[in-house]
C-alpha cells in the first residue's frame, strides 16, 4: 500500500523569537508521509504539535520562523517559498488544514456557500453555478445536504460546521489534509460519526492525512503511523499498531496508560505528573527527564539520539547500543515522581512579579 512519498520532512526546526528568548517549539523533526497514508501526531498541549502543522503550510505566525531543515511537499521545497508563493502554490491545492476550533472559523455574516467557494474562485477562477455544483458535491461527500450551501453558520450545529470545514478542505483535491484537533469540541456521538466519515473519505479519495490531537484513543482508529511529540521533539515514530501494543518511550507508555478503559474496573488512573517544560529553557539532556519514571543519571546530561528498534524510531537513552548509557544508574536527582508539584515553568515570571508586590 506504500505509494510515493507526498511529504518529506527533514530536520525541521521552528522557533519563536520572543522577547524572553527563543522558544524552541519544534526541534529536529524528520519523517516521511506516503500517498494515502495517515500520521497521527499526539502529545500534551504545548509540545509543538500545532507548530508542526503551521510549519508544513509555511504559515508559522510571527515571531515564529522555520530556522532549519527542509519540507519537501510533492517536489516543492516549502521552506524556500515566500508568503505569496505559498498561497498560490501549496495552500488548499497541495495541502489544506482543518484548524482547531474550526467551528468558529466561519464569518457569521456570510452564508456557508459564500465562504466555501473562495478557494475555488482564487485558485481556479471557478464561480457561480459551477462552483456551487462542486461545493454541493463535496458537502454530500461529508454527509450533508446540498441545501446547507445557502444557510448561515449560526443555523448549523457544531458537527455540521465541522463537516463544512472538512468539505472545504477537500475542494481542490489536495494530496494532504492536516486536521488539528478536529473533534475536540464535539460530543462523543458526533465525534464518532465524523471520524467514520474521515476514514471513509481517506479510502475513497486516496488522500494522505495528518491528525493532531492530545487524545491518543482517537488516533488508534485512524492512523497508520504515530508521531509522539514531547517538548518540541518527536520522541517516538512508527507504526500505530506496534506503538499501541508495545510503546517504547516512557512518555508514550504513560500517555497510553492514561486512557480510561470502559470494560474493566480500575482503582487508579495513570497520569504523568508535572507539566511540559517552558521551551525557552528546555531541560538539559533529555527534555522529558524531569517527569520520567525511568530517568537515569545520563538523561540529565546527554541528549538522546534516535534509535531504530524494530522499525520504530525512539529518542531515548534506554535503547542506546552503548551499554554504559543504556544501563546507566538510576537517577539520584529528584524527578516529578517524588515531588508532585515540580513545575518550574512559570518560576521566571513569578520572580519578576514578587519584587513589585511587596506592599501587599
Amino acid at each position: 500500500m506504500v505509494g510515493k512519498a507526498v511529504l518529506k520532512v527533514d530536520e525541521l526546526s521552528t522557533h519563536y523569537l520572543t522577547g524572553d528568548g527563543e522558544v524552541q517549539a519544534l526541534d529536529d523533526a524528520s519523517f516521511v508521509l506516503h500517498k494515502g497514508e495517515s500520521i497521527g501526531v499526539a502529545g500534551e498541549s504545548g509540545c509543538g504539535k500545532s507548530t508542526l502543522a503551521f510549519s508544513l503550510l509555511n504559515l508559522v505566525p510571527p515571531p515564529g520562523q522555520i530556522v532549519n531543515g527542509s519540507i519537501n511537499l510533492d517536489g516543492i521545497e516549502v521552506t524556500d517559498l515566500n508568503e505569496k508563493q505559498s498561497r498560490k502554490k501549496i495552500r488548499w491545492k497541495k495541502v489544506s488544514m482543518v484548524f482547531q476550533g474550526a467551528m468558529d472559523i466561519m464569518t457569521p455574516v456570510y452564508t456557508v456557500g459564500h465562504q466555501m467557494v473562495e478557494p475555488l474562485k482564487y485558485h481556479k477562477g471557478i464561480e457561480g453555478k459551477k462552483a456551487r455544483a462542486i461545493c454541493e458535491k463535496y458537502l454530500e461527500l461529508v454527509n450533508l445536504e446540498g441545501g446547507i450551501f445557502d444557510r448561515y453558520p449560526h443555523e448549523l450545529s457544531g458537527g455540521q460546521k465541522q463537516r463544512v470545514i472538512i468539505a472545504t478542505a477537500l475542494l481542490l483535491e489536495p494530496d494532504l489534509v492536516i486536521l488539528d484537533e478536529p473533534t475536540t469540541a464535539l460530543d462523543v456521538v458526533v465525534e464518532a460519526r465524523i471520524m467514520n466519515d474521515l476514514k471513509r473519505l481517506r479510502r475513497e479519495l486516496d488522500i494522505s492525512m495528518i491528525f493532531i490531537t492530545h487524545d491518543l484513543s482517537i488516533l488508534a482508529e485512524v492512523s497508520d503511523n504515530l508521531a509522539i511529540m514531547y517538548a518540541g521533539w518527536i520522541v517516538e515514530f512508527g507504526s500505530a499498531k506496534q506503538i499501541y501494543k508495545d510503546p517504547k518511550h516512557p512518555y508514550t507508555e504513560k500517555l497510553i496508560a492514561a486512557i480510561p478503559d470502559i470494560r474493566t474496573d480500575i482503582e487508579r488512573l495513570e497520569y504523568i505528573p508535572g507539566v511540559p517544560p517552558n521551551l525557552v529553557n528546555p531541560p538539559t539532556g533529555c527534555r522529558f527527564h524531569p517527569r520520567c519514571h525511568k530517568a537515569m543519571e545520563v538523561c540529565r546530561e546527554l541528549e538522546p539520539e534516535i534509535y531504530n528498534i524494530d522499525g520504530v524510531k525512539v529518542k531515548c537513552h534506554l535503547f542506546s547500543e552503548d551499554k554504559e548509557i543504556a544501563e546507566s544508574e538510576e537517577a539520584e536527582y529528584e524527578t516529578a515522581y517524588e515531588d508532585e508539584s515540580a513545575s518550574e515553568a512559570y518560576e521566571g515570571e513569578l520572580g519578576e512579579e514578587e519584587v513589585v508586590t511587596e506592599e501587599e
Partner: protein
Amino acid sequence: MAKPLFKARNLTKHFDITQGFLQKLRGEEKQKVKAVDGIDFDIYWKQNFSAVGESGCGKTTVGKLMMRLLDPTDGRMYMKGKDITELSNKQQIKAYRRQTQMIYQDPFSALDPRHRIRTILEEPLMIHGIGDSRDERDDMIYEAMEEVRLTPPEKFLRRYPHMLSGGQKQRISLARAMILNPDFIVADEPVSMLDVSVRAEVLNLMKDLIDKEDITYFYITHDISTTRFFTDYIGVMYLGDMVEKGKVGDVLDNPSHPYTQALLVAVPEPDPERGRGVKKVPIKGEIPSAVNIPKGCRFHPRCPHSKKICRNKKPVGKEVGKEHIAKCHFAGEIEFDLEVAK
C-alpha cells in the same frame, strides 16, 4: 439500604422563551424549553453519581438546580432528608451552599484573572464569615492547598491564575470548593478541558478526597469512559429525561437503553487491532430541540429499534436488574454486544 444523602423527585425545569406581542395577542401557547423534565434519582453517601449525555440533554441544568442556582419549575429535592426546594430566603440558601459546592467546566474562566490565588481561596471564607483573623484563614487556605497537592502553598498563593497550568487551575477550583468542608460537590465536566494525561491526575485527586474528607460528588460529563473509574452510580440523560440509571458496572456491562448503547459504541477504541473499520453508531441525526420533544418515547426518531408503540406511548421505567432501570419499551429485549458493535 442506607438512606440517601440526596434525593430528587419529579425534578423539573422549564424555561419560558420570550414571545412577541403579536403571539400573545393571538393567544398562542407559551413555548417552553423543557431542559429537565421530571427526573428521579437518589445519591448515597460517598457513592458518586454521574450524569452522562450529549450537549443539550439537561445535565448541567440538573447541577444548577441542585445548587439552587436555578429554581425548579416542579418537583422536590431533599438533602439529608431536608427539603431544599423550600429554602426561600438568602440566608437559608447561603447556609445550604456551605455544604454543597460546585466546580465548573472551564478552569480558565472560573477563576478571576485579577485576583491572586490567596484572594480567590479566601473569598468563600469571607462570604461565609469563617475565621476570625487573617492568620486563621491562612491556616485553612494552606490546608486546602495541601489537600489538592499544590505544595508548598507559599509558592502558589501570590500567583495569578494565568501563571498556572490548566490542571493546577482546576485543582485551585477544587481547593476553593473544599475550603468550606462541604459534604457534597457538583462537578460540571471538571476535566473535559484538560489534556488526557492531566485529566487522570485531577480525577485521582478528587477520588482520594472521598474517603479523606467524606465527600460525595455529582459528576456531570459527556465522556462515559471516565465514569467507571470515578463513580458508583450513573444516570444517562437524554433530552431532559434520565433514560437509564443504575450501578455503573451494571449499566456499562449491560446497557439496556439504545441511547446508552450508542454512547458506548461511540467511545474511541484505543486498540488499533480492534477499531479500524467504520463503526456502526446505532443512532441517527442529532439531538432535537428541547422545545418540541417528540411524542411517545423521546428517543424514537433517532432510535434504530423504534416500533409503532414508541411513537405513541411514553415508556415507563423498567427494572432490568437490581437498582438498574431503563426507560424503554424494549428494555432487556434488545441484544447488544459491545465487541460486535465495534
